[in-house]
């Protein structure tokens, strides 16, 4: 059974203007998040993803639909009981939201105090967590003495203090530079692997999804417009909006403007060949072209690795007799997707 299961979940706010229709932030979303997943939710700002994640730990009440966490319906639970549920769900934030008046140690200890742990338990657990995130030497520091990456590591340690099964990450790397982002993502991967914590990660950056997520949902206008395995969504997005996200990290078929530039600089026919792991090897494609006596040049594209599986799009400028090109492409087309660049 799924660890988190959303069925037809809608969240709307009363409109700021009197009499106007309510603002729908999350619109009939259904998702299943399995235990052990790293589930990415991507969308532009205002797509409703931050609201969605706040429905999962009931920081915001759901307007309609049901959410179950660990088999318990949280949408009908009274606030007092929800506090118990929240102890089982960790959360980290874009702005870290550390307590500036407390030391690193006291920040990590806080959820344990809320949970009613004993002093000895707290000390032991905090030591363990600070060692895990590599900040043992910063225990007595205050958050304003730390770098952004260190702050987020404290945030992660704090979120894991009560050993939750689920960790919600709300744009957890968006305020960090690319290098620190990778560090934090590596740490989250370890959290997932070593502790088996299920992670829901909200982001607007596709490379975050690429480097950490196993499943992804694309949100637009409060709705989930596409969801599935990261590899599938990356290698063949079905929705234009998903395709736009994918194109931020994957060089796909050149846009008309890019195609015009390519055409200016290269002779011959421009053709994009899309590879998917296992379907066809690049070598076979290149061999077909060479055997047909065609001259070709790689002008655009890239090969990506998602969770150990490769896929990509290569645009070639092929020179030779038209008939020879057609027959070669027909042969390749039987095995890989071939798109003529218009």
């Amino acid at each position, binding site marked *: 059974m799924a660890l988190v299961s959303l069925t037809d979940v809608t969240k709307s706010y009363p409109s700021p203007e009197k009499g106007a229709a309510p603002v729908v932030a999350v619109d009939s979303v259904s998702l299943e998040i399995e235990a052990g997943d790293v589930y990415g939710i991507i969308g532009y700002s205002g797509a409703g993803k931050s609201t969605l994640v706040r429905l999962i730990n009931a920081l915001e009440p759901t307007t309609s639909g049901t959410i179950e966490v660990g088999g318990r319906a949280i949408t009908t639970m009274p606030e007092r009981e929800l*506090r118990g549920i929240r102890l089982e769900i960790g959360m980290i934030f874009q702005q870290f*939201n*550390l*307590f500036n*008046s407390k030391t690193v140690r006291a920040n990590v200890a806080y*959820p344990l105090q*809320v949970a009613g742990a004993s002093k000895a338990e707290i000390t032991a657990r905090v030591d363990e967590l600070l060692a895990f995130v590599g900040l043992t030497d910063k225990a007595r520091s205050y958050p304003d003495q730390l770098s952004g990456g260190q702050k987020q590591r404290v945030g992660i340690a704090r979120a894991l203090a009560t050993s939750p099964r689920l960790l919600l990450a709300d744009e957890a790397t968006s305020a960090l530079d690319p290098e620190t982002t990778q560090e934090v993502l590596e740490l989250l991967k370890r959290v997932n692997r070593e502790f088996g914590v299920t992670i829901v990660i909200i982001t607007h950056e596709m490379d975050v999804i690429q480097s950490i997520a196993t499943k992804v949902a694309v949100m637009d206008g409060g709705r989930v417009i596409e969801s599935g395995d990261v590899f599938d969504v990356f290698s063949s997005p079905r929705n234009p909006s998903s395709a736009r996200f994918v194109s931020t990290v994957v060089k796909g078929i050149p846009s008309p403007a890019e195609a015009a530039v390519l055409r200016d600089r290269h002779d011959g026919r421009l053709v994009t060949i899309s590879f998917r792991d296992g379907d066809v090897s690049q070598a076979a494609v290149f061999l077909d072209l060479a055997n047909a006596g065609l001259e070709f040049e790689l002008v655009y594209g890239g090969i990506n690795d998602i969770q150990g599986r490769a896929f990509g799009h290569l645009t070639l400028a092929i020179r030779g007799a038209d008939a020879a090109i057609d027959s070669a492409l027909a042969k390749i087309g039987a095995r890989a997707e071939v798109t003529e660049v218009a």
Partner: protein
Amino acid sequence: MDRLFELGSEFWVAAAETLYMVALTLLVGGLFGLLLGIVLYTTRPGSLLSNKPVFNIVNVVINFFRPIPFIIFIAAVQPLSRLVIGTGIGNDAMIFALSIASSFAISRIVEQNLLTVSPGVIEAARAMGAGPIRILRTVVLPEALGPLILGYTFVLVALVDMTAVAGAVGGGGLGAFALTYGYRQFEPVVTWAAVILIVVFVQLAQFLGNWLARKVMRR
């Protein structure tokens, strides 16, 4: 100058009276102001214990009393003062009036400073399963402590100012001293002696407040 030396003991008594009035008011008014400020903060729409009726009532009551000029307020609460502390005149009546008036002003300062605590930090505490009272006690108040200390320092300076009109209800202090022995007896040296001591008090208070706030905020 000679006159000031003749008045020596009265001068120091007046100084002690000012300190007494300020200290007691800061304690009583400060406490009520803190409570009122916390009520304003927590019941405000969208806050920890959001409660619109309570917020509106407290808000209106504070707005009703706040604009009353203090010298008139002293006279207006005199009957109440007689009822509660048994006297309508003197330093204690002054403290009574000042405590009420200042708690309304202080409640606004407390409210403002609590509002500076980032909503994100409160959300983080909620996400960890903390309830509203715990969040107020362990997150909001500690996070706002630095600004609160500066706020109370401001209040303390304002109280020194307000005690100067204690003479109006037969109270003492440096204000009454300066008016009685300086202004009315054409002794500018006496007036200025009171002024300088008040300035010294205020400087010391501000210095102490800044130091404490810096220590709390570690900058």
